[in-house]
């Protein structure tokens, strides 16, 4: 290796310290929030003078929080299903298809990832106003689908590119019709990619806030929007409790995605 880590001498310790500092910088705010959610100070004093579960009790006692969480979950699950199905179909075309403009199409599919979310949000908002989709469940799902699809397409095209089409041909010669071969052989064989696509799509919707703020109506609010609006009205540790739960679920899904990724590369 050009840069042998063991031979860097003093520089090695500088690098290690830097890494620890960056990690702390990333993790501390989250730990801070978690600590506050269990602290008994109404005024978010840190370090908390004592510990309590009151804020979680308040959180669960308020049906509006539950409603927001349920809305978030319904939207995220719908987005997940649509994103995986559409992502799979798009990926088959992108990986297996031989047509002009394939690379261009791939670039277009990945556009929402590089486009600033605010611009996307404004554009979708204007469009949905026209279509009468603003503030509707369908509007939410479509808006989140736009940002979830690129993740789904990346995960599934990667898995599909690692799958030899000759295996599918073998299944067909074994007597399976082309769709049966895909259903019984190709899709199970790329299931790690499908799961990764599902998890990333869910997360893309679950903790999305910019589009959600534009789409939200008094009747329909996702959890991140509820956190945001509550925050603007009054600073209560209940927000810390809600955030902790959000982070918790995200963490679980990330670990799951990581596991799947590792099993694939093994």
């Amino acid at each position, binding site marked *: 290796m050009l840069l042998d880590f063991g031979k860097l001498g003093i520089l090695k310790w500088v690098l290690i310290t830097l890494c620890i500092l960056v990690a702390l910088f990333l993790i501390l705010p989250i730990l801070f929030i978690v600590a506050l959610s269990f602290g008994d100070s109404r005024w978010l004093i840190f370090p908390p003078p004592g510990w309590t579960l009151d804020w979680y009790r308040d959180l669960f006692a308020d049906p509006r929080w539950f409603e927001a969480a349920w809305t978030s979950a319904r939207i995220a699950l719908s987005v997940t299903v649509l994103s995986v199905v559409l992502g799979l179909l798009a990926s088959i075309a992108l990986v297996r298809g031989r047509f002009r403009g394939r690379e261009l199409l791939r670039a277009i599919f990945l556009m929402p990832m590089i486009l600033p979310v605010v611009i996307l949000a404004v554009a979708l908002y204007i469009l949905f106003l026209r279509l009468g989709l603003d503030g509707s469940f369908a509007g939410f799902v479509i808006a989140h689908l736009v940002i979830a699809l690129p993740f789904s397409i990346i995960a599934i095209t990667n898995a599909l590119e690692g799958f030899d089409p000759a295996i599918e041909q073998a299944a067909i010669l*074994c007597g399976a019709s082309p769709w049966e071969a895909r259903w019984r052989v190709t899709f199970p064989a790329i299931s790690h990619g499908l799961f990764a696509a599902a998890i990333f799509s869910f997360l893309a919707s679950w903790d999305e806030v910019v589009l959600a703020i534009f789409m939200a109506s008094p009747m329909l609010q996702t959890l991140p929007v509820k956190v945001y609006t509550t925050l603007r009205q009054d600073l209560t540790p209940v927000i810390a409790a809600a955030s902790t739960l959000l982070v918790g679920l995200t963490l679980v899904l990330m670990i799951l995605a990581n596991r799947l990724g590792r099993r694939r590369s093994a």
Partner: protein
Amino acid sequence: MIPPFLHINGLRKTYGPVVATEHVELSIKEGEFMTFLGPSGSGKSTTLYILAGFQDPDTGDIRLRGRSILGVPSHKRNIGMVFQRYTLFPHLSVGENVAFPLRVRRLPQAEITRKVRRALELVRLGGFEERKPASLSGGQQQRVALARALVYDPPVLLMDEPLSALDKKLREEIQYEIRRIHRETGVTILYVTHDQEEALRLSDRIAIFNAGRIEQVGTGAELYTSPATHFVADFIGDSSFLDGTIAAVEGRCADLRLGDGTLARRIPLHAPGRPGQRAELMLRPERIELSPDPGPDGASLPVLVQDVTFLGNITDVVALTAWNAPVTVRLGFMHPLSGRLTRGDRLWIRWAAETVHAFPRD
């Protein structure tokens, strides 16, 4: 008249400007082991893929027992195939891989279990049912693929260079297995390879492919003793070719004037030739003599030893003629000169007229 078991008739396939195969014409008997042998890109796989139904030919027909199969989709052709690359279903166990064609055909479980066991025993992998493909060696994976392709008793089994990813020793071992399986099952096999030794070892008959066409079809012995074209002569056996000019023609034989003025007498001609035409003299490495003395006039040439390669049971000698054309001579282990030759030795090559051929040039 009874139609041939499998008849490939005037097949032609192009990919844009590329002609992959052309005029492919072949009849295969039931139970025959037919090998497509030819260099890479000569259209062997294309022909096989048309048989499998993954490609449609531009023109031509394929008839199995007299009935065209071109209109039948791949999954209804009931043909077995082993691919060059490993194609076991990665998420299924070995047993489920082999069971797959039977499950698709909705056979009862008891019959599936019985057939899967029998197929795995046929490829000597009994007891491997629970293993996952990733835990198998390349050779084992190809044997499972073979079991999967045979478990539903297809009338025809296609194999596209199934052993090309394996090392030589393992390859020979599985070649032997394939022969045994062919004997035991009696299945008709169409086998693709670019390895002449593999083709000779396995096949009843060999079709030599070159640039999308079949140059000659015959048993290994026929191809070796009477190659129809220069290409076949070159491909089967490591023949040497010496340039010459036809000096005289007598029936199907000719006298050839070689580069140093030597006259090679009464050489069998492969195509009609006339005096003055250029022709090539084909010499088989194991059918020519290497000797310190010249042979009878018109059947020998002086050479200079250029390179000696000891290969265990045989020794290959590359010698140069007076006009610097290389000739390969193969000596058996017991040959009196074996082990005594060095670069720079001056010797004679000798041949019997009936063991050499002349190919007139166009």
